[in-house]
């Protein structure tokens, strides 16, 4: 059997762990609300940059619809939702998350804002591990390169133009880096193709959604 000192040790360790647990729990309980606020502020920072204007009336962070699983590989994602941008209940554009894997170092997560007609509102890189100062010109704070995507669509840019200039495409490469911009261009192109394929579902789903709302209101009125 254990000797007395072992029981004493267990007791001391238990008490310390308990006090530590209570302390962490208390601090967590106090800060929880604030942390959720900072998280959503952080997430929104990029979302509102790819919304067409600041006058949207819905909460673009939480107003979402799902993406069917079969499109996940196309977008490079494992989970994710389409964020909706609405003005007075009317859908004006969507924001699609997407991940490029062909970068120099790991995943490049991007957000693509798309107007309902299929043209790009804007693109932003949310996170990446590309080489600092060499491959990070796609950050909007570092250069205007990413703004080249604005207003582009499958209609006004043919498939062979979705490349860097070096390979006969439309987009500039950064000095010293072609891999990173190529990866982003390719993934933005894929995202637009996805929208073409899934467009009818998104608009239909929203219409059904709106109709339910309308009919509910109607019943409520009666």
């Amino acid at each position: 059997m254990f000797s007395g000192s072992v029981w004493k040790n267990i007791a001391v360790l238990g008490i310390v762990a308990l006090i530590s647990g209570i302390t962490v729990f208390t601090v967590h309980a106090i800060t929880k609300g604030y942390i959720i606020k900072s998280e959503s502020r952080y997430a929104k920072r990029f979302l509102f940059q790819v919304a067409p204007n600041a006058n949207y009336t819905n909460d673009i962070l939480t107003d979402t619809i799902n993406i069917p699983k079969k499109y996940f590989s196309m977008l490079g994602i494992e989970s994710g939702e389409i964020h909706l941008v609405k003005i007075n209940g009317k859908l004006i554009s969507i924001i699609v998350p997407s991940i490029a894997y062909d970068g120099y170092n790991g995943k490049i997560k991007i957000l693509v804002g798309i107007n309902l007609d299929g043209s790009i509102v804007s693109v932003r890189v949310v996170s990446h591990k590309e080489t600092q100062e060499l491959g990070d010109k796609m950050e909007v704070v570092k250069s205007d390169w990413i703004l080249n995507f604005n207003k582009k669509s499958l209609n006004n840019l043919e498939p062979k133009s979705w490349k860097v200039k070096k390979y006969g495409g439309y987009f500039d490469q950064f000095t010293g880096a072609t891999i990173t911009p190529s990866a982003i261009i390719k993934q933005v192109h894929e995202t637009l193709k996805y929208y073409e394929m899934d467009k009818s579902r998104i608009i239909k789903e929203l219409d059904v959604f709106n109709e339910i709302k309308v009919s509910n209101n109607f019943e409520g009125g009666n």
Partner: protein
Amino acid sequence: MYIRSYKSILNNGIWEENQGLILFLGLCPLIAVSNSVVKALGLSIATMFVLLFSNITISLIKKRVSGILKIPIFIIIIATFTTIIELFMKVFMYELYILLGIFIPLIIVNGLILNRAEIFACKNSVVKSAFDGLIFGMGFSAVLITLSAVREILSVGKIFINMDLLFGSAAVDWSITIFSEGYSFLLFMLPPGAFILLGFLIALKNLIDGKVNTLSGNERSSLKKETKRVRTTGPVA
């Protein structure tokens, strides 16, 4: 024993036993996080917070904890304060927290903190332990921030980039361009550059130590030389 006056804590923490330059504790965050001043400041604040409060707490309970239980209990205490500062950083500087990533939770296993707990805090009074934590934290932070400032200047030609992550929107244009716009030197952005510069910092410290020794120790060294001569001639005769 390891009982010291405040003056010697100050001297040892900042200079003689500097955790970054002499003992090389916390080398991993030192190398990884020193690529920008704002990240270095963020990690410095977090490390100093944990070191200060873990030293105080450990000093408070030193009489009740002994032997085999010491290390696990120290780790629990350090982990508690690390989690607390992590939560606070999420509230007040979420973006900086994201930038620092894994290096905030890794404070738990930073040898510097456990070293101070084991060597000093569990043998000294609360006030002295708090002072020790603060000073050794400052010594580590000084190396981290100096290294990051040099790296930032040499790698992108600017200093104090993105300080708004820590000081709010008032600090948006604190960044100072030192070399021409568009300057960039990749080596100093990556870990090898950090190692090279850390080497230079250590060399600089040793140089200063050498100068100080030759200035203050002239008399003693001349005395030593004589005794040496006597000794060498001794066996021969």
